[in-house]
């Protein structure tokens, strides 16, 4: 029992490893913020493309479908490895000379945009057709009806599932350690292989939990609020 505590919860090791893990964790936070902003914007664009009407738009729609199917189905760790190990070898100016941080953010963005596109799409489809019809009947163009009437309602409805996906994204920044980004997991791994002590992993784990709990509670709060509102309307 003592050995177990010594290996995972050693106060001495904690003091030694905490600064490095904390440093690394700030990289996790940076990756998370940049990736989330990119995902929010890109996924919305792709969801809109998937919903474009008319026969002329089918190649764009097809591309959007292929993209989401591909990256929703590929494990993040594979995407991260392919990008971080594969791209530098190609010697393409502007692509092959990026930092591992950029590659890591790219991998997170590619995979999570595919998920979030589906979330947005569900939201857009949940807005009743009569809303679009009412907007168009007032003379608003397709784009204006989307921008002012459909999307505001759609986005509002999908905020809880969207935040839920972001909880996943925050945790998955740890996977980007395989791309050689010096983040919390790498720091903990380095410490454990030098000292045969795993307190660093526990520290990293606790930091991740502290990061995701507020978001998870906020999501719960939004869901509860919506339930109350809908019940008030039904009653």
């Amino acid at each position, binding site marked *: 029992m003592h050995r177990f505590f010594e290996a995972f919860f050693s106060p001495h090791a904690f003091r030694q490893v905490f600064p490095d893990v904390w440093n690394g964790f700030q990289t996790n936070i940076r990756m998370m913020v940049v990736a989330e902003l990119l995902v929010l914007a890109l996924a919305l664009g792709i969801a809109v493309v998937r919903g474009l009407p008319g026969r002329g738009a089918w190649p764009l729609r097809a591309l959007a479908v292929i993209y989401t199917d591909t990256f929703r189905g590929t494990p993040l760790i594979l995407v991260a490895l392919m990008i971080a190990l594969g791209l530098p070898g190609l010697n393409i100016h502007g692509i092959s000379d990026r930092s591992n941080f950029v590659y890591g953010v790219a991998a997170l963005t590619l995979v999570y945009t595919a998920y979030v596109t589906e979330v947005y799409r569900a939201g857009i489809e949940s807005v009743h057709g009569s809303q679009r019809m009412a907007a168009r*009947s007032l003379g608003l163009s397709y784009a204006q009806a989307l921008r002012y*009437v459909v999307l505001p309602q759609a986005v509002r409805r999908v905020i809880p599932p969207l935040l839920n996906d972001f909880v996943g994204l925050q945790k998955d920044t740890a996977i980007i350690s395989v791309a050689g980004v010096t983040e919390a997991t790498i720091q903990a791994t380095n410490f454990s292989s030098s000292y045969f002590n795993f307190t660093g992993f526990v520290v990293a784990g606790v930091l991740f939990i502290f990061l995701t709990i507020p978001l998870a509670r906020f999501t719960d709060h939004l869901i509860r609020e919506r339930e109350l509102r809908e019940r008030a309307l039904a009653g």
Partner: protein
Amino acid sequence: MSATAPSFVQLEGVTKRFGDNVVLKSVDLAVEEHEVVCLIGASGSGKSTLLRCVNLLERVDEGRIVFDGLDLTNGKVDVNALRRKIGIVFQAYNLFPHMTVLQNVTLAPRKVLGHSRNKARGRARELLRRIGLEEKAEEFPDRLSGGQQQRVAIARALAMDPKLMLLDEITSALDPQLVSEVLNLVRSLTEDFGMTMIIATHEMSFAREVADRVCFLDAGVILEEGPPDQIFAAPKQERTQEFLSRVIAAGRM
């Protein structure tokens, strides 16, 4: 081509199908400016589809619709420009639930007509005052009764200064005690503005009162049309008589 100028709204041989189902069968209808035409008939007779064809929410399969000298069915019409001139009010109000009443009324004037925020708001408040809902300007539609929501929907359509209003069974979703407030508003539109209107309705006494002409639709055909007194007091067609006697039996007249 006849030499006479076409009417303000003119439908010629308009046919509309949904799959194998022919909803409108070669319908002819002419509406003059300032005229109020009521469409009556059972549910599924094609009243709503006819209205939706006029502002191109539904595409016509055959025939021609001319509005204000413009052939709507030639495929080159700018639908957005056309819809600025034609207001439509729906059975289910279709207000935008994420916007306040004022935002509902000002959206199209601002984004479509390019009016400034202040101009659009001033005009919207004036309209809301007319419909007696000025104090609800900052409320969300969910907080309003059905009758109030429908009045806001009418104000939203009027804010575009349409030349033609299409009313699609606008009282069908309302509790009976709320019907009159909406119908009073429509009545004032005909009396004060001389608004040209095509009204699909189940309210026979209202149709009798406001319509210049009543058209009875049956299975996608205008079976009979004429002044309200003739249609309601002395209908010629057997189907019209049947329909009206059913309506009277149901206590809707």
